[in-house]
């Protein structure tokens, strides 16, 4: 996990410094507990019992345990990309699929690997493979993303973000 001060003082990752094939710093979360899952359900008012009522999850729905929420996973990937881009880059887009279930006890490693780079209108676009790996190298959330990083000596990335035509 990262601290508030690490995010406050984070050094910019530049387009120039990312090589295709490079793995970017991962975010490790966990081990997950029923309390983490319940906190998410409460925060977004998702009362589906499979996420916090173990008897219901196991004996009614036949699941192995209470399950981590897909909506939580959906929020973690953009959060991770946001952290990678801070302070002046932009986590433009991400797509992913929901695969392996997350259950209490799992530790998650959110990861990204650069698969391509391109410069458009003075902005640095980096394509990534991304995911959320569980213990035993089980992939829970494989996907692809594009982040926009500043080029050393280049123009600032516009905010609100406006993608170049054809990007």
């Amino acid at each position, binding site marked *: *996990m*990262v*601290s*508030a001060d690490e*995010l*406050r003082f984070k050094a910019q990752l530049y387009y120039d410094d990312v090589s295709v094939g490079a793995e970017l710093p991962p975010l490790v*979360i966990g081990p997950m507990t029923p309390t*983490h899952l319940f*906190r*998410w359900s*409460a*925060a*977004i*008012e*998702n*009362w*589906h*019992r*499979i996420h916090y*009522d173990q008897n*219901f999850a196991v004996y*009614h*729905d036949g699941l192995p345990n209470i399950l981590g929420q*897909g*909506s*939580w996973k*959906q*929020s*973690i*990937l*953009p*959060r991770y*990309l*946001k*952290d990678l881009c*801070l*302070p*002046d880059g*932009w*986590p*433009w*887009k*991400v*797509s*992913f*699929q*929901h695969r392996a279930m997350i259950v209490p006890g799992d530790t998650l490693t959110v990861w990204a690997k650069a698969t391509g780079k391109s410069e458009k209108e003075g902005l640095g676009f980096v394509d990534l493979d991304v995911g959320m790996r569980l213990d035993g190298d089980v992939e829970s959330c494989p*996907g692809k993303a594009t982040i926009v990083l500043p080029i050393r000596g280049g123009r600032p990335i516009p*905010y*609100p*973000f*406006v993608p170049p035509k054809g990007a």
Partner: protein
Amino acid sequence: MSEAKTGAAENPLTDKIKALIGTSAERVEASPRWGIEREGLRLFTNAIMDPDPRYWDEEFARKTRFGGIVTPPIYCSYLSRKTPAGAEDPISRAFRENPESDGIGGVREGGDSGPGALPPVPTPLKRILNAGNEIELYQYPRLGDRIYSQARYADIKGHITKDGSPMLVITTETTYTNQDGDRLCILRASTIRR
């Protein structure tokens, strides 16, 4: 023999379903009347374990490129799920109607037919699976922003699977904007109906 084994299954993408592609729902307000507020933001950022000071430190946030406190990237997509103050308690209602409620059915006000909902896809295929999500980000919401959402059917494809079963892949796209009409983010969710 089943339809699948005789090869008789038809592509489930009917003309009626095709006609839904591009259909938009009403644009509705997703946030409460008082807009994005600090306490809801605190609960959310704690739940994603993100201590970023851009979400809570006013002085620091003011000096960033965002010019003030912002929310996590897709925070705005969760605002409409919250029960408005003063509403009938949906949890009590759901369990009164069905003591075995799963906590979802009957709980969300309006369900899939409330304001801002897309018309249902007329198909006998009932089983729903999540096929994936896409997110595009343009701007982060700020404290006090009022958030609006508008959904549309971006695409619907029909297939016959290898085992001969009919299947639809339905992609809905929801665009979130603020009170000034600025685009904040676009979320696409694809579901499989089998």
